């Protein structure tokens, strides 16, 4: 039995041209996004956006101050969100329930701009992608929030502090 169904040179040519095309498509999208995000970050546009989203936090069962780590995670990614959560915990700003809900939301829905656009680059409808992700994150976070044990709602956050 022949191991390969074609010659090695054909496989290499196919890989080279194919990966080159894929990368050009992605780079054309990634670079403009990165430039835009840099402007959002450096011009502190985020502060202005934060206010609009505070009611969303309340709706999801979090306190208003959870809006910052939540939004950072949604836009820039898990690692950034985690960094800000750790910072906020140190400053006694978040309750255990807040952190729990933020985590649930963020693992399902983070870095939405980048993650969505890399699939848009290969022809997927970004609205379906983004919509399903946000919808699922909201529903699941709401469920967790509703069933979160009342007794733990005001629990101390010392155990989290020691981890960070």
């Amino acid at each position, binding site marked *: 039995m022949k191991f390969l169904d074609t010659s090695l040179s054909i496989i290499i040519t196919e890989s080279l041209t194919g990966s080159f095309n894929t990368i050009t498509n992605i780079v054309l999208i990634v670079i403009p996004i990165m430039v835009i995000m840099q402007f959002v970050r450096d011009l502190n546009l985020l502060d202005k956006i934060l206010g609009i989203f505070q009611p969303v936090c309340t709706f999801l069962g979090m306190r208003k101050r959870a809006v910052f780590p939540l939004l950072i995670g949604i836009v820039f990614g898990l690692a950034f969100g985690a960094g800000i959560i750790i910072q906020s915990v140190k400053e006694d700003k978040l309750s255990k329930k807040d952190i729990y809900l933020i985590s649930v939301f963020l693992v399902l829905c983070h870095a939405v701009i980048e993650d969505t656009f890399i699939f848009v680059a290969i022809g*997927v409808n970004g609205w379906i992608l983004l919509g399903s992700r946000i919808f699922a994150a909201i529903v699941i976070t709401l469920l967790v929030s509703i069933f979160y044990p009342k007794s733990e709602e005001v629990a101390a956050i010392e155990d989290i502090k020691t981890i960070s």
Partner: protein
Amino acid sequence: MVNVQQIFKRGLMNGLKTSWELIKIIVPVYFFVTFLKHTPALNYISKLISPFMELLGLSGESSIVLVMGYALNLYAALGAIASLTLSLKEITILAIMLSFAHSFFIETAVSKKFGISTSALTFLRFVSSIIAGFIANLLL
């Protein structure tokens, strides 16, 4: 005042850095999957896993995309998608599934920093990924 030019430059540098990170992942994966495609191996794995993949409206060979995405990251999955011949519906289902759950190893390490059970979070992601794929197949 804010220096627009400098912000632009920094954004551009970030974009180039990210692009380079992507290239380092996508190219090897693309080579790997293209090579695999021309061996009997992918065919064999496809047949083995296709009954399950059918439930999600996917062909057996697209399982390699899920494996790449779950284990490595979205860019690796992208490399795999590009190197296979898949329909737009299949790609959309894969994209939805993978946007719910990807880069398990790295992101689990990150979510550890949240200070809550990572196994629960990982389980939540995996299950929602499968359910999302199932629903997407029904709706699309």
